[in-house]
Every structure is written in C-alpha cells, then in structure tokens.
C-alpha cells in the first residue's frame, strides 16, 4: 500500500486553513460590553396609571390586539374608557412628537379594548383570606377593586347607584364615552372575585359596619357635588347644575332644551353640557368662562368639537349676578383679567368697568365639583378641625381612620380618570401590603417608573428581568438618521352636521388594521422589539438571543465582543447600552 509522500498530499502541501477564527478570543481586546437593558419611555412615565405603553403598542403593531390588551390590563381595568376620554399625557410626552407627530396612543388603547380578547391576570393569592370593601365604583373604586382582586382579596364593591361606573356612566355623555365601551371594560371584572352591591349608599354607620366586616375599606365616592355660583340669582328657575344636568341627560330624564343656553365654566363638564345642549335642541349655545382658550382645563379636542357645532365661546368673563328678565334669564359679567395670581393660585382678578350681559333661556353652571361628605360626619374620616376633603397619609393613602383608605376625586378634588385609576392601583397595593404586615414604599421603589410616582404593579409582583424603570429613553437618545417619516393616523370623527341628531360617539375607534399600523409608528423607546438589529449589525457575529434565541434578552458573547458599541449605536430604542466589565 503506497503511502502518499508528504510533498504530494494535497491537504498539506499548500496552506489550507480548515480551522476557525473562533479560536481567537477577541473578547480580550476590550472590556466594554453591551448590556441589554430595557428601559422606560416618556409616554410610560407620563401615564399616571403606569401603562406599559411601548409593550402594548409593540403587540398591537404585530397585529396582536389580544396581547396589547393584556398589557394594558396589567396596570388598568379601563382601557376602553381611557381609550375614549383620557387626556393622553402619554401623547404629550411621546418621543415621536418631536419627530413627525405623536403616536395616537389613546386610539390604539381603545382599539385594543374593542377588538382584543384577554382576561385580567391574578398576581398572587396571598390576599385570599383578607376580604376588602370598596365604596364607590367610579374609576378609582373600580381600579382598587380590580387590583385588590388580582392580589387575591375577595372584594365587594358598594355602589349607591343601580349600575357601576360613577361619573363614567353618569357624568360623561355618551357622545364622548360610548356606554358599550364602558360595559366591555366592566365585563372583564366577572372573571375576578369581585362582588357588587348596587343601590347601597354607605354613610358613617355603614362605614362602621364595613370596618367590622372587612379587613380594610377603600373609600372612592368621588367628587360629584356641583359647586354653585355664589351670586344673586343662582337659584332661579332655569339655572341648572352641570353634573346633575348631565346625569339627567344620561338617564333620559331631561327634556329638550329650546332657545338659548348659557353654560358657565371652562372644564370638561361645561363643554359636555354645551354639546349636550346642542343635541337637546338648543338654538344657540354660549360658553362663558374665566379662562382664555389655552388656560381652559377642558380638553382641546372637545373645544374643537364644540366650535364645529356652533357653540360660541366668551373667554375671560366672571358672572356677577343672574336676573329674571320677563321669563328669560340675564347674566351680568365683568371682565376677568387674570385667573391666577402671582403665586399661581386660583385667585381671579377682574375689571368691573368692562361688562357683558347675556340673555338666555337656560343657564348651566359647571364651575367645578367637590366631594359630598356630609353623610360621613362623625365617622372620623372628615377632619373635625377644618371641613374639607378626606385627608390621607400620602405614603399609603390611609385616612385618619385605621384600615380605611381613600383615593380618587374624594381626596384630590376633581381630577382625571387616569389619575383616579392610578390612585386605585396604589391604594390596592398599599392595602395589600398593610394587610400582610409589610412595608409598601420599600417594595414599590424598585418598580417606580422614571421619577415616579407611577409604578408597575405587574413588575412588582411578577418581577421583570433586564429592565431599569429608572432610565428614561428620551428623543435625544434616538438617532434621527434611522427614523422614517409617517404621518400620525387619526380616528374617524363623526361629521358635525350628523352629530346633532343624537348622542352617537363623535370619535370612532380605529379599525384593527389601522390600529396596528398606527401602533407601528411607535419607536418602542426602551422596549426591545426583537428587531434583530443588534444581532445583524454586530461585526463579530457574536450576539445571541432575540427572537430565535428563545428569549428577548440579546447578549454579546464575551469571548468575541470587541466592545465596538455598534450594537448600541444601531439599537433604535436605547435598549442596548454599553457597560464595563469582562
């Protein structure tokens, strides 16, 4: 058997490299390493309810509205409601707003609730032997009940009206919040251990009984007592109260309004009342308020709708008296020069020499609401020294009465739906830890979003690896060269000429396809979308993980990573950052 001489063996007579450069551990070239650390975004930290907006929008962008809904349900029970009426602070801080228009986050949330199917998840059963009561089923109460039930507590809601919802049902007109949307949100409570007792008003004595029956009570009766103008003629016939008016409209117990209607006030209740008046047949509707247009607390969108429907605005007027002028009402005004004083406190300055008189058939006062706490006098909830709203310990929302907690408008005065939801969530967690004998603030610290006070209840109880909620990815952290332009998508709006025919919702929901498309405009700041860019752009081909790695967490192989930071530079969301250490 002839052996091939060594000078003839094709394998060894010329250099043929069959080994791999993987033998060179180029990771020793640098001690810089990428760290895949998800962060938060301004929309996320800007949402009082702590909604994980980029995570939800990521799901939605992939056509998974079930998934998007699940993400919203992690922090809030009312995505449909918020998707209709929230003042969307998220959009105001959306990074895309600095580029080509904020993402229409609110519309996507609405679509998720409309088309998605998901159940709330129970976070722990530890509360199972600690039943609690919630008084009031507005957004604060519903949120508290929702989260307490997810924490294992048997919850019983006590609601004075025959149906749940509070102001959501009785204070916001149907053209702004479709009742079906509210009912769909409420329907999801049925999968949790939540009992409902309607038609029951809890007073001081009732509160005592609840304290005896339950381990803790959450008071969320809201602020639904309308303030009345402190002027002559405020009690004349035809002078209505804003919130009562809206409730009557909702219960169909209000007749038509003919003639001219004046609404006094600059908030959402005022605009809701003005638009309702239009639909009830008013010939002309005026809105007079202290504030200039930009200062009005009412939503700018609703202002636009009101303008489109012919409502006439008078800005910077303070009513001084109302007089009956032969069956009609005349309101005298003086000019309001400034609403707030030099300290920013509500302290209107007026010029009496400038006057206006408006003669109308009806007047609706919508100058604000406050909590009606008369029924609780003697309960200890209301401080005896100075009558006022319910006071709570800011760290854990407990009132002066042990084991009675409070939140929402009853504590803060009229606020937003989303803030009430946030309060309810915070209270639920505070109550849960109190009942388990633990410290709430300590636990909360690691899941605070940005500078707070929003936090993630989902992360608190289920943990979340590779996530730094204190780091906010701002627009300056993004690379404009990598960004394309696409105009913000809008929901369909009912034509003004068609609106007056009834109380149909003005703003429709996006369809599921448009919702996915709008969600895809989200940059997903701080949230890894498994786009694979870090993987693809690594010159060392040493990044693992991602969608084919079985886990979302990408990592660089330290044996080969030269610390070049390309992965971090190409990450469009600020998730891949550079760190030190071998």
């Amino acid at each position, binding site marked *: 058997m002839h052996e091939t001489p060594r000078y003839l063996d094709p394998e060894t007579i010329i*250099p043929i*490299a069959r080994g791999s*450069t993987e033998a060179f551990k180029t990771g020793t070239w640098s001690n810089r390493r990428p760290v895949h650390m998800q962060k938060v975004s301004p929309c996320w930290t800007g949402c009082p309810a702590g909604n994980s907006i980029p995570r939800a929008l990521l799901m939605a962008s992939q056509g998974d509205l079930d998934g998007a809904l699940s993400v919203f349900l992690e922090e809030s029970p009312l995505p449909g409601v918020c998707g209709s009426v929230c003042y969307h602070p998220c959009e105001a801080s959306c990074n895309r707003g600095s580029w080509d228009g904020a993402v229409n986050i609110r519309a996507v949330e609405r679509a998720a609730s409309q088309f998605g199917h998901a159940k709330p998840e129970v976070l722990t059963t530890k509360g199972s032997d600690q039943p609690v009561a919630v008084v009031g089923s507005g957004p604060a109460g519903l949120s508290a009940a929702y989260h307490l039930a997810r924490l294992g507590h048997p919850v019983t809601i006590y609601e004075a009206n025959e149906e749940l919802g509070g102001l959501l049902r009785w204070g916001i007109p149907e053209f702004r919040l479709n009742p079906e949307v509210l009912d769909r949100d409420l329907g999801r409570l049925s999968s949790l251990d939540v009992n409902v007792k309607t038609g029951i008003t809890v007073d001081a004595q009732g509160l005592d009984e609840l304290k005896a029956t339950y381990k803790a009570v959450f008071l969320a009766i809201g602020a639904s007592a309308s303030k009345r103008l402190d002027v002559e003629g405020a009690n004349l016939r035809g002078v209505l109260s804003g919130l009562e008016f809206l409730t009557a409209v909702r219960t169909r117990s209000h007749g038509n309004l003919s003639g001219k209607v004046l609404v006094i006030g600059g908030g959402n209740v005022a605009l809701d009342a003005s638009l309702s008046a239009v639909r009830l047949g008013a010939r002309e509707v005026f809105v007079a308020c202290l504030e200039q247009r930009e200062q009005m607390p009412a939503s700018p969108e609703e202002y636009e709708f009101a303008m489109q429907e012919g409502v006439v605005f008078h800005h910077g007027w303070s009513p001084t008296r109302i007089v009956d002028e032969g069956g009609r009402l005349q309101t005298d005004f003086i000019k309001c020069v400034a609403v707030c004083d030099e300290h920013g406190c509500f302290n209107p300055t007026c010029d009496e020499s400038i006057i206006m008189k408006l003669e109308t058939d009806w007047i609706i006062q919508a100058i604000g609401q406050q909590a009606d706490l008369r029924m609780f006098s003697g309960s200890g909830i209301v401080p005896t020294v100075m009558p006022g709203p319910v006071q709570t310990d800011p760290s854990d929302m407990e009132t002066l009465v042990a084991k009675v907690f409070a939140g929402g408008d009853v504590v803060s005065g009229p606020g937003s739906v989303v803030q009430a939801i946030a309060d309810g969530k915070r209270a639920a967690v505070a109550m849960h830890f109190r009942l388990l004998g633990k410290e709430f603030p300590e636990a909360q610290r690691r899941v605070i979003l940005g500078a707070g006070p929003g936090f993630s209840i989902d992360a608190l109880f289920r943990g979340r690896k590779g996530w730094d909620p204190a780091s906010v990815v701002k627009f300056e952290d993004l690379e404009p060269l990598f960004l394309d332009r696409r105009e913000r998508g809008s929901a369909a709006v009912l034509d003004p000429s068609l609106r007056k025919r009834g109380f149909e919702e003005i703003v429709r929901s996006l369809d599921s396809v448009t919702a996915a498309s709008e969600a895809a405009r989200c940059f997903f700041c701080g949230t890894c979308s498994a*786009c*694979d860019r870090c993987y693809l752009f690594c010159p060392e081909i040493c990044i693992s993980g991602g969608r084919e790695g079985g886990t979302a967490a990408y990592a660089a192989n330290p044996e080969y990573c030269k*610390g*070049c*930071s390309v992965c971090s530079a190409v990450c469009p969301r600020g998730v891949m950052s550079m760190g030190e250490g071998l």
Partner: protein
Amino acid sequence: MDKLAETMLQQPRPPEIMRSGHLACPGCGIALGMRMVLRAIGPRVIVVVVPSCVAVTSGPFPHAALGVPAFHSAFEIAAPTAAGISSALKLQGIHDIPVLAFAGDGGTFDIGLQSLSGAAARDDDLIYVCMDNEAYMNTGIQVSSSTPRFAWTGTSPRGNPRRKKQIMEIMAAHRIPYAATASMGFPDDLTMKTKRAAAIRGTRFIHVLSPCPTGWKIPEHLSPKVAVAAVETNIFPLYEIVDGVHYTITHESKNLPVQAYLSLQGRYKHLTDREVAEIQEETDRIWSDLQARAAKERV
C-alpha cells in the same frame, strides 16, 4: 424605519457564513459588509479574496473566518481568479455554485482595474463585490483613486486633490448584466441586491461602501450611522444598473445636506466652507444626473 424590521422579522435568520474571532478592527465596516453579503448568498459559494482588509479579516492559517471554500489570490487579480474557478466548475459539470470575489477599492479601482475590465468585457460568470473603504487601509491609510476629494489620508495629508473614480460608470460602460451600489447601513437593500445578483449569470458587480473607523477617523460604533448618512446625503446613492443602461434608484434618500455625513468624520474635519460647498455641488450634480437616468426608465 421599521421596513427593515418587517422584512427581517418575516423571515427566519439565514445561517451565518462568517465566523467570530476574525481580526478586523472593532467596528469594521468591511467585516460587517462581508457578513451581510455572505449570509445573503448562503453556504453554497466559493469565495475569492485578495490582499486588502478583507484578507486580513479572513484569518491567518490555519484559522479561517469564512465558512465556505475560499482562495486568497494576488492583489490585482480578484476577477480573473474568480473567472478561472467559475469556468473550471462548469467544466466539471457543476453549475450551481457561484463564485464571489471580494476586493478592496485598491484592488478594484487601481491595480485591479485592468483585470476587472477584462473579466467584465468577457462577461465572465462571477460576482464581484468591492468593499470600498476609500483608501489603502490594510497598509496604513494611503490614498487610492477611490478616495473622495478633500479627504485626508496618510499620502494626501492636506486633503485629496483628486475626485473619486466613478467605478459604477466604468462598469456600466462594459454593459455587464448587473451592477449595484450597496451600503451596510441598509441591510435589506444589500441583501436584495446580493440575491438578485446571485440569481443571474455573467459579470455582476456590487459596490459596497464600507466605513472604516481607523481610516475615516470615526468612533468605532459609528460605521452603520455613517453608512446611512452617506446614502441619505446622496454622496453614495443606492441604485442598480442593468445591462449598463437601465438605471433604478432603490432608495429615495432624505436629501440631507452633505455636512450631515462629512461632519461625522475626522478625515474631513479640516474642510473649509468652500470645500464643503464644492462637495455639495458635485454631489447634487451627480445625484440629479442619476435621477434623470432613472427617470428615463420609468417612461
């Protein structure tokens, strides 16, 4: 922006052909470009490399960074080497293994231009990929005919007085079936072009702009961004030329001012306003000419 993500997320990751542990500088645009081209073409290929940063990256004996059969030939002969292998395969009855040659700008624009022209004139069946880092980087940083005007190199220390050779026009003049520019800042476009080239026969030429942190004086992490900026400022437009006459622009740029690209690089930091203006003017002229040619196609 997520057109890329959509394209990629819809498909499973192709196998990687290049291996880690290669000796390219950190952040090397060539390493990244090679990786992208190779994963687009797949494992059934024979690769030719010639002295350049490509060869250094490919690994010293007995280690290889290329996971496919490859041959390290001489500086100026990437094209005829690939042509020889390609002819030989066909003589052996093998018709489904493409031969892909990687060369640097020196090996393409300068010393290799003659042999590339010869191959193109014969329409030899090969894919020629020029990894263009715009100077002789493997040997330090020396000017080549691919170095843009005014750029600093070690042998043009006051800025290069000559213009960059228009290699695409040269290749188009040979009427080869396919020529394209590509940038590693646009992996989907690069992938599409590589696959398009692989699907046809004849001489196919892909010009890949490959930023070089070392020679362009940019931080290591900036290669992709610079590669994107080159395209979005029209300094390196992305287009295809079929049969030497049919032009298609494959990316509508953002028409950013050239400063958005030049200001990122230390090799241009000495530029005067006048020089920037000249670069802008020249860029605008070439871009406008390219658009006119592409427009003729659509009629």
